[in-house]
């Protein structure tokens, strides 16, 4: 059947370094968001991607800036790895006029077409049919773009997943369905909600290529991503990638993960993908200094973004009359 393990291909250290840059950016941004929320500087529902950084960093490193991304509420790892300006993102999380969406969308609805971040949805599964539409446009335009659609393991049980994968395959759309399998949907374990052993095997139901990879291994994840991107660009159609990963901070910030066996959590954290990737770079003779410099640069950017967000003004209430329709609504 279509399901297969990809071999961890050898990936250049430059690529791994690029992946690390993106993963570390997500890593530090997430830490800052959590401290600001904990400290009361931000009052938002926050879906931490901590633990899933390498999945996105590897996937997005295989894309061009003008490729499209559709993602979900748990999305800063995808958005930042795709290249969205961190200041605009932060300001949107803070509901400020300087945010990507003028504060009107908020954390769950980040959009930034310049970097290909087309849709962020809060409705489980609904990004997949929309991703098909972006890919359909690319197919018609012959612009060579690829659309990546991120979603979770739980989303693979909802109807939109089924309809979208079937349509993508029969139309051979240049789309990649990236299931970030962190083994839980809210408080329900995958095994309790999902009839199949893997998500990847569901590709068979559509005659689609499906692969399951260790998403926390940058080389393996990047290889799978690159293969899927190349196939899509070559007109060979969609791929379903099931990237195995884990989330360290529960569903939303404040979730105590009571439903996750202690050992499972401990083992997952022991296999934290970010330090592992950092170590692998050191093993590849990248110097401690070089990595420390990258981290310092990111730290500065993150601080600057956070300050920018806090210092920015709130939108004017007249915004409630704009962007509802093409013409402004009469007050």
């Amino acid at each position, binding site marked *: 059947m279509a399901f297969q393990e990809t071999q961890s291909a050898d990936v250049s250290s430059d690529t791994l370094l690029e992946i690390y840059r993106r993963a570390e950016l997500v890593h530090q941004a997430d830490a800052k968001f959590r401290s600001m929320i904990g400290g009361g500087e931000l009052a938002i529902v926050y879906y931490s991607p901590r633990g899933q950084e390498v999945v996105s960093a590897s996937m997005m490193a295989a894309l061009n800036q003008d490729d499209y991304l559709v993602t979900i509420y748990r999305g800063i790892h995808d958005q930042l790895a795709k290249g969205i300006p961190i200041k605009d993102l932060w300001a949107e999380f803070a509901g400020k006029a300087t945010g990507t969406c003028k504060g009107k969308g908020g954390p769950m609805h980040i959009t930034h077409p310049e970097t290909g971040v087309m849709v962020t*949805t809060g409705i489980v599964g609904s990004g997949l*049919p929309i991703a098909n539409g972006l890919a359909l446009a690319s197919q018609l335009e012959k612009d060579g773009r690829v659309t990546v659609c991120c979603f979770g393991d739980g989303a693979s049980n909802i109807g939109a997943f089924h*309809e979208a994968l079937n349509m993508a395959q029969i139309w051979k759309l240049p789309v990649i369905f990236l299931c970030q399998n962190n083994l839980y949907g809210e408080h329900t374990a995958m095994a309790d909600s999902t009839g199949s052993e893997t998500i990847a095997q569901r590709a068979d139901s559509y005659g689609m290529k499906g692969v399951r990879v260790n998403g926390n291994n940058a080389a393996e994840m990047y290889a799978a991503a690159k293969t899927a991107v190349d196939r899509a660009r070559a007109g060979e159609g969609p791929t379903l990638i099931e990237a195995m990963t884990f989330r360290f901070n529960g569903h939303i910030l404040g979730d105590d993960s009571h439903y996750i066996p202690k050992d499972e959590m401990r083992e997952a954290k022991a296999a934290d993908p970010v330090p592992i990737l950092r170590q692998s770079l050191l093993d590849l003779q990248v110097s401690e200094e070089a990595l420390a410099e990258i981290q310092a640069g990111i730290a500065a950017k993150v601080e600057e973004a956070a300050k920018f967000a806090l210092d920015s003004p709130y939108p004017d209430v007249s915004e409630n009359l704009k962007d509802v329709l093409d013409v402004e609504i009469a007050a």
Partner: protein
Amino acid sequence: MSTTTLQKEITFGQAYNMAMDEAMASDPSVILLGEDVADPQGGGVFKASLGLSKKYGTDRVRSTPIAEQAIMGAAIGASLVGYRPIAEIMLMNFITVAMDQVVNHAAKLRFMSGGQTTVPITIRTVTGAGRGFGGQHSDMLEAWFAHVPGMKVVAASNPADAKGLLLSCIEDDNPCLFIELTATYAMKGPAPEPGYRVPLGKAAIAREGSDVTIIAYSRAAMDAIQVADKLAEEGISVEVVDLRTIAPFDAETVLNSVAKTRRAIVAHEAVKEFGVGAEISSRIHEELFSDLRSPVLRVGSRYAPVPFSPVLEQDWMTTADKIEASVRQAISK
């Protein structure tokens, strides 16, 4: 009739076909997605897209799987990057499986993105009672979409408007829901000039009158015109306002008419309770309370699912007779 001379009359079905044909001919970004819409599948179960895939290719006129969420999502996604997709939802009751795509996404993405992305799609769907299609194939659900900020809801009462309104929907930069009726698909009316457009958001004065205004749309507007012509013989002067765009509706035309006649009836085929008529009636009372000679009345179908048996269906639905009765009630006060 020779193919070179223009038809003098066309059906509603031909109007939909001509509008899509003209739109696809003039704008390569217009595409059509829906079940069986391409010619190898018959050009749509109602034949609305007959010949279009032959002319524009099955890349632009695509038959889809039976998967309304996928159809709607594909239309929305393509529209975010420059396309003007027409999504055909065969019957309006089937849009219930795609409400998330329409309501949470099509209607909201412009606002939630702060205006960075827009969703210029047209959803074409067919519905309406009177044909014995029963409870799951006849509902008029326009009130739901009218209540959703960010969408336009449109319905025509004659083939010329049908063509002009559909073209305007396709060219509009907002998501539009365009409602067609099974019962009127084959009905004829004068053909419009090529390139004819009916602006969205503008109602039509279908009949001028001074005693009472009937505000209606779609089939109820056809009935209202009948009623107006019949009552004219009795010397009762009925003005008929055909909304054409149900939401956001043309309050100015409605209010000007009622300010003149000082009596109004709102009529539609949808169930009366919590229907479109309630919004229009409330608006009129809010703005013209002291001018009104009698309260605005509403005519809508019964509070029940659409029954199958023909005797029940006729009793259930809005008819010209019921509209006439409420006109007489209004002017009696």
